[in-house]
């Protein structure tokens, strides 16, 4: 087990290196330069000065080496080309918590309501109630978060005037309600479906018969035998969902004017802001890798039958 964890952790390094290398060369192979998007063409000598300032006049391998060396030795991601004087690492540190908080809230919402919907659906399979909860979850899967967000803004902010139309005021203001629901709807639907099917599967297992034959009440059987086993597979889905929600929040962030990482990334890709693109990609890749590791380890803790070598 310890060996497995050590190996997985050590694998993070070559994986991140590969992510960095692919992103770096893909960005530099794309025709155009960071100075194309400034409105009108810059004079040649200005472009040359800019290239020199940011080291873009050096051979590509040297640029690659310098960039990599900066990351490895100082964790330095460089300076944004477009917003001059802004250190990319500082911006990420500033903005990432916003995206992360949104993601965590959305997943909390998705877990609570998804599990409730799934359990309701599993009480009487194929009944009217079950079909209704299934319908709700299909709606959740079929509504893109940008559509959900805008519809909610129209309904709750413009017509009913209950909530603000957007912005960010920290995690405890009512501004988070619309983005959290919009982001959480999809994962909620998926969690509901998984919960329903794994509760049904778990109900037909032998340990449930044993528990019943011990004379436990149905409620007791459900809470301490059926649900914990059913929720193991839900954990994986939730873990993957968290990554999707955090990395996929830029639609919602841009509609609702939330200062997270998503919007920042999109504008930097079209503007060829290499340091920002690479910084964001590395940050999200780290998140994906760590979440995948956590999910795999959570499995062994929750289900002692699974062992890794």
């Amino acid at each position, binding site marked *: 087990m310890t060996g497995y964890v050590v190996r997985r952790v050590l694998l993070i390094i*070559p*994986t*991140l290196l*590969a*992510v960095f290398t*692919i*992103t770096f060369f*893909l*960005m530099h*192979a*794309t*025709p*155009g330069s960071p100075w194309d998007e400034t409105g009108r063409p810059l004079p040649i000598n200005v472009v040359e000065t800019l290239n020199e300032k940011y080291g873009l006049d050096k051979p590509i391998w040297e640029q690659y080496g310098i960039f990599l060396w900066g990351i490895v030795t100082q964790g330095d991601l460089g300076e944004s080309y477009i917003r001059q004087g802004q250190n990319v690492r500082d911006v990420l540190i500033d903005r990432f918590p916003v995206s992360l908080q949104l993601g965590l809230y959305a997943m909390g919402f998705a877990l609570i309501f998804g599990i409730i919907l799934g359990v309701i659906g599993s009480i009487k*399979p*194929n009944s009217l109630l079950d079909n209704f909860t299934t319908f709700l979850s*299909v*709606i959740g*899967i*079929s*509504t*893109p978060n*940008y*559509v959900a967000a*805008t*519809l909610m*803004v*129209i309904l709750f902010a*413009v017509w009913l005037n209950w909530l603000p139309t957007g912005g960010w005021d920290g995690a405890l203001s009512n501004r988070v309600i619309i983005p959290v629901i919009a982001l959480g709807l999809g994962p909620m639907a998926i969690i509901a*479906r998984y919960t*329903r*099917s794994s509760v*049904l599967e778990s109900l037909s297992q032998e340990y449930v018969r044993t528990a019943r034959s011990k004379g436990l009440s149905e409620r007791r059987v459900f809470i301490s035998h059926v649900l914990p086993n059913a929720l193991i597979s839900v954990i994986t889905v939730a873990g993957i969902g968290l*990554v999707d929600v955090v*990395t*996929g929040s*830029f*639609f919602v962030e*841009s*509609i609702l004017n939330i200062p997270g990482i998503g919007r920042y*990334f*999109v504008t930097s*890709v*079209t503007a060829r802001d290499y340091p920002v*693109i690479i910084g*964001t*990609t590395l940050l*999200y*890749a780290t*998140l*994906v*890798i760590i979440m*995948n590791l956590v999910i795999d380890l959570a499995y062994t803790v929750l289900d002692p039958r699974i062992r890794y070598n």
Partner: protein
Amino acid sequence: MENQQKILTSHKETVISIEESLPIYRSQSKQMLRRFAKNRASVISAIFIFLLAITAIFAPLTAPSGYDEVDFAAITQPPSAEHLFGTDALGRDVLSRLIYGARVSLMVSIMAQLVIVLIGVPVGIISGYSGGWVDIVIQRIVDTLYAFPSLLFIIIVMTYLQGTLQESEGVIATALSALNESTGGLLGVLIALGLVFWLTVSRIVRGEVLSIKEKEFVLAARAIGGTHRHLMFRHILPNVMAPVLVAVTFGIPNVIMLEAGLSYLGLGTRPPVPSWGLMIAEGVRNFRSFPHLLIAPGLTLSLTLLAFNYLGDGIREALDPSMRGK
């Protein structure tokens, strides 16, 4: 003698009674169709998708007007008899744009799935069938690509492709870039989507192959001297297609949603080629004064996604009855 006769007749009787009690034999595909037909939501969804596809394919005939036909006398009109879904800020008929937009959405999703299957299935089969170091190398690559946050990777690949397609020279490249240009940047979008999402399909296929290659019929085919290629593509491939079909059906709404999202951010198709995402983006900008500009494309998109999800459920249950209700 008499006794023997008795045994014979009784034997005959049993045979007859067994035959009578046997269910009427149906071919496997007929059984699947019957199972599919029992699922009402899936059948309705299939009909909806069929009608949508027909309408989109024959868009010049079915749409009331062209997608870029401007009528300055009728700007941002609410739905009326003349313009069923109203008109947009340039006086273009919203229904016609939705129909042409369906072409974009359906084409992107089907082409992207084609790219996904063409990469994912062979890689999965080769990886699972070969085992050993081939499998290890392929799986390492797949794991590394999995670490890429998929949306960011799609955006990076897409900017690269669109830039390269515009500037490259040569016969094939020119043809490709002309195709890309005439579809408003669609080609770049679907290649990018395909290049990122083949991973999941290849994993599904590999898992299936690992169990199928140990089955008796594969062993039998090998025993009579089948080559590796023959085994992989004649015996194993047909048996992994069912889960692939399910993955493809569920993948289609995902791609439609992503394409619309990318167009929404201005990274997908470029105007004037209409895409549902572009229309939603235009609708969002003006939703306070003209809600119909957002509601029409938003609902169309959601209904289509709903239909594909129900269709996917139906296909999965039809192929594998043990998955019923999961």
